[in-house]
């Protein structure tokens, strides 16, 4: 108990959502007489949340959008009051829920540094002491006396990040994942900063749905779903549970999809199924075969069943795989693989199978499939997110793929 920096005790949070807004003249009169009796819908954003964070711990809060994780963070930051329960915090908290809070375009860069710093609770003296450091880190020496509205958005983010990270020498940091948006260079800066925080043994609460980051930085993590804690534990375990949650969900999704007679054409990417209708992809399946801990071992077998609706001289069938973030990871087709398919008659069905080596990290993957003809110029049927598969691994890496890598070392000088 003594080394606990944050104790969250049985916290619940309800939001009252009024059923209707007073809008029209008629409503004003009907509501005027029943002002006390306006009806509310109570939304339970958090239910009986309880956990402790120890000093120096890097604690992750993961969950899907709408699971309640941001509400929890706002309660920890003292922005929202819990409806029930209490939060004890053993030090100064600096919330990084958004960068550059209170930035004003009409003020100069310098003035904004002081304003932003004051909002985080730092006096002019404290800021002056670190001012040069802040400017240097943001690489904006020449621009500090210009108005912020003349900064590019990249410059603004750099300044905001610099103020936040250089100043915040507090005991507890609350970090929302929105911090890590931006270009690759900026993300790298963010992650370097996280590593520094870890080295400095700061108490950090980190909200994210990036499981790679959870595995890499967090000592412990909490999984929250539908306003309740699912589990608290080692980041690896939590990350697996998080992915399993998606797996179960998409299984249910698939079942309902089939019930709907495949009428829903839109997948997770929002791309619609399209094509000229000369052939149809009947089904796509993905089977994970013997994919175990060893890197590159096992394979994923993707099978597409295609039905020709007219005679096709040279059909071409292809697929691609993308991850949850919709990054296209890999893909190919029968033309590219120099595997010409024989001509098909109308009504004929055939299967195409691909075996992909097991270079997947843990996560959920989506498969797009396409049948084309005439040198792949004309698309008969393109089916985005035709199927999905999940990979579970004990030993993950924080990278996108997990190929077989061989190691060798030689000692050159004795």
């Amino acid at each position, binding site marked *: 108990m003594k080394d606990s920096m944050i104790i969250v005790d049985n916290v619940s949070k309800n939001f009252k959502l009024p059923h209707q807004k007073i809008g029209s003249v008629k409503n004003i009169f009907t509501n005027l007489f029943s002002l006390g009796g306006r009806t509310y819908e109570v939304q339970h954003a958090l239910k009986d949340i309880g956990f402790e964070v120890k000093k120096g711990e890097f604690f992750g809060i993961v969950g899907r959008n709408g699971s309640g994780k941001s509400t929890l963070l706002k309660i920890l*930051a003292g*922005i929202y*009051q819990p409806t029930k329960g209490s939060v004890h915090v053993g030090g100064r908290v600096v*919330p990084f829920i958004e960068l550059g809070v209170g930035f004003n375009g009409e003020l100069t860069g310098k003035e904004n540094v002081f304003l932003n710093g004051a909002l985080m*609770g730092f006096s002019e003296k404290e800021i002056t002491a670190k001012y040069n450091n802040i400017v240097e880190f943001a690489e904006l020496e020449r621009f500090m006396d210009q108005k912020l509205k003349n900064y590019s958005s990249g410059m603004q983010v750099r300044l905001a990040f610099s103020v936040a990270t250089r100043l915040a020498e507090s005991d507890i940091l609350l970090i929302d994942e929105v911090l890590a948006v931006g270009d690759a260079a900026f993300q790298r800066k963010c992650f370097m900063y996280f590593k520094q925080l870890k080295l400095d043994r700061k108490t950090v609460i980190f909200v994210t749905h990036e499981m790679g980051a959870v595995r890499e930085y967090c000592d412990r993590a909490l999984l929250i779903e539908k306003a309740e804690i699912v589990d608290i534990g080692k980041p690896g375990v939590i990350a697996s549970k998080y992915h399993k949650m998606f797996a179960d969900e998409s299984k249910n999704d698939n079942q309902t999809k089939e019930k709907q007679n495949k009428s829903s054409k839109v997948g997770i990417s929002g791309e619609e199924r399209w094509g000229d209708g000369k052939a149809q992809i009947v089904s796509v399946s993905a089977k994970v075969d013997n994919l175990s801990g060893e890197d590159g071992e096992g394979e994923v077998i993707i099978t597409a069943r295609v039905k020709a609706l007219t005679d096709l001289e040279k059909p071409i069938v292809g697929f691609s795989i993308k991850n949850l973030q919709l990054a296209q990871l890999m893909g190919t087709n029968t033309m590219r693989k120099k595997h010409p398919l024989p001509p098909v008659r109308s009504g004929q069905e055939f299967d195409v199978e691909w075996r992909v080596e097991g270079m997947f990290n843990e996560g959920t993957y989506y498969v797009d499939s396409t049948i084309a003809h005439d040198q792949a110029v004309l698309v008969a049927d393109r089916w985005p997110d035709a199927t999905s598969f999940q990979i579970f691994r004990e030993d993950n890496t924080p990278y996108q793929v997990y190929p077989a890598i061989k190691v060798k070392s030689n000692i050159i000088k004795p």
Partner: protein
Amino acid sequence: MIKKLKNRYRYSTILLNQLVKTDFKLRYQNSVLGYLWSLLKPLFLFLIMYMVFVKVLNVDFGVKNSGAYLLLGLVIWSFFTEVTGGSVGAIVGKGDLLRKLSFPRYVIVLSTGFSALINLCLNLLIVGLFILIGGSDTSWKILLAPLIFAELFVFSLALGFFLSAAFVKLRDIGHIWDVIMQALFYITPIFFPITLAPLWAQKILILNPLAQIMQDLRYLLVSHHTTTINSVYGSSWSRLIPVIITLIMAFIASLYFRKKSKYFAEEI
């Protein structure tokens, strides 16, 4: 003890300081005359009012330096409208900050008050100039003026706290307050001598803290011929009534604001 207090209000003072500074910097952004407007605005307003009430309508105030007398009233009125009018939307206007940071909410309203106070001080310089030119009956009693200014500050802020908190949920407050301000403008003796009204009406009008404050300050700074609550009721104890009204308002407003401020972030 003092250190403890200082620590407790450290965040608030830092923030207040910075918010007032920012407000002051932004107020006259992109204007050629800049801060000079703080001095020019009351001066022009005064000229217009002086023309209408003194020259055209021939209102007689029965005091020696009617210029300074009028201007002081106007300056007090501007301070009052700046604090209350500015407070109404102050909390809602800072909604962006409230939703992302946890800081003492009262700082926002307080900063509106202090910004207006700086303006008041600048305006008083002009009043001082009028007094120097036109003369006044000041005595040792001028030392009491800060107390009355404090009453003005508390009275205006009490309303400010109440209005800003109420406006979060009930946006009608903005329009209601506009109407009330119009009414207040005419029942406060800014441009008419209060003695114009029958005595029974004077007795009611002067209970308005703003009227009492205005007349008292005019008495202390400009002319001892000013009709104050003293002379209306014939007893200096009568001054306690508006002062107590002010204190009660401040008490209720701070309780109300404190209760409501917990939920600002989610209700805006």
